[in-house]
């Protein structure tokens, strides 16, 4: 009988750490191998910053509103919204890849791990957030040369806000991935989620401007969790904390995460009743 080198898995703290770092490492590695994805992720907000924001600068004045202590250019105002856009698109891309992984079977590799499924899903989410952080900091680095110059400490204080906002959007996307049956349905769902979430928020215009034009839209923007994610990022980028935004983003993160974990629960979730596994057997 051949002597085999084997490695027994550990389910103690070191095992959890190995599992978590393995999942995050895989997400980052995949992203770095997909150069075109990195480029696309950067180009999207940069087009908005270099073209859309410049065009809007002349028609949309921004008065002094917190956290800004003086009049700011529209590009400065819109930057936290574009950071939110990166997080939003990354979360949805991650969700798309989960639907794809489920169709191809790669998702099962993750789900048959002996670790608790909730732990696996949260690790996967944090892996997606790690990828989003790479994109956000690359974007902020380029934006710096476009005179978007928050205080240096802002690059540090924004980090927890980015992680929390990324988790909230990722958890929402994860839940959506569990209810989307086929990849073909994804584009339609995205149109009903990404665009309304992004446009009905404070990402592109201050809420007081929206209120002047449409009180109804203003109310919609106020209940949109993405608005609060953007505001959390906006304040954190200037070293400040917006407590209402923090509370809402935190609450929504817990809610979306609970829904996603429920949906992927083998005995209670949606996967058990909505149809058989892929494959003919």
């Amino acid at each position, binding site marked *: 009988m051949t002597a085999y080198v084997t490695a027994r898995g550990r389910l103690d703290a070191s095992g959890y750490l190995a599992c978590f770092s*393995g999942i995050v490492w895989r997400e980052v590695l*995949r992203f770095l191998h997909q150069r075109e994805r990195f480029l696309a992720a950067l180009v999207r907000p940069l087009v908005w910053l270099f073209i859309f924001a410049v065009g809007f600068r002349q028609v949309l004045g921004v008065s002094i509103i917190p956290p800004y202590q003086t009049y700011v250019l529209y590009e400065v105002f819109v930057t936290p919204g574009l950071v939110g856009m990166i997080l939003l698109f990354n979360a949805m891309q991650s969700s798309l890849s989960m639907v794809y992984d489920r169709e191809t079977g790669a998702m099962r590799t993750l789900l048959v791990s002996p*670790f608790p499924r909730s732990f696996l899903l949260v690790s996967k989410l944090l892996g997606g957030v790690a990828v989003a952080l790479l994109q956000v900091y690359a974007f902020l680095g380029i934006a710096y040369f476009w005179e978007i110059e928050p205080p240096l400490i802002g690059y540090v204080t924004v980090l927890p806000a980015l992680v929390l906002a990324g988790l909230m959007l990722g958890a929402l996307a994860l839940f959506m991935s569990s209810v989307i049956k086929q990849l073909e349905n994804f584009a339609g769902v995205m149109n009903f989620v990404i665009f309304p979430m992004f446009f009905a928020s404070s990402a592109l215009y201050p809420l007081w401007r929206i209120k002047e034009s449409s009180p109804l839209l203003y109310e919609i923007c106020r209940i949109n969790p993405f608005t609060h994610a953007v505001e959390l990022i906006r304040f954190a980028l200037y070293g400040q904390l917006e407590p209402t935004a923090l509370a809402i983003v935190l609450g929504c993160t817990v809610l979306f995460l609970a829904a996603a974990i429920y949906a992927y629960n*083998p005995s209670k979730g949606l996967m058990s009743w909505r149809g058989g596994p892929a494959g003919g*057997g």
Partner: protein
Amino acid sequence: MRGVSHRFGPILALDDVTLAVPRGTFVVLLGPNGAGKSTLFALATRLYDSVSGEIRILGHDVRRNPTAALQQLGVVFQSRSLDGYLSLLQNLTYHAALQGIGRRASRAPAMQALAKVGLAERADDKVRELSGGQARRVEIARALLHDPACLLLDEATVGLDIASRESTLAIVRGLVKERGVGVLWATHLVDEVASDDHVVLLHKGRVRFSGLVPDLLRVAQAGNLRGAFMRVTEDTHAEAA
């Protein structure tokens, strides 16, 4: 696996299925497409829970103690589940991480598992550069990495040419002898069944026969396995015709 039933809405996919895979044995789960083989695998790997019955792996109930149960299991799914953007070695170390094995600790076993399936020299190649048969062998190497007691393979040879099919089957049969793993080999191809194999014949979600091949031939009153298989599943073929 005892008395396992599962339904998807009104459709009864598995009906009171009982089977055992002792260590060091090669059990063939034989059944036509739609027999319920993949559903059975999904339940055994706890992709979702069965409606009734129990599934134990080395005594650990999959539903009550999934952590201990799944740790004993190596799985090769019917659909390809490797990450094409990563190298062979990266795919294996990722899988090892999912089992709680650190990257450094998993490197040597990963290389040995790749050597076992004849792909050690391609460890740093991207998976998407491999042929279908080679990718299957990587999936087998991956399933072995954490030293499981039981190996489940769901239609592992689908889409492979004859040479790749035979080599995949030979590798898995070799593992039974060399490492004493219990193997559940799901297939719809009767020519993958050896004359002394233990066969569980699944049809329309029910076990129609469980025993050795000679006993199946006797029960089905057939001269060969193909005839026995056709006889047991004849209502399906009649419907298809």
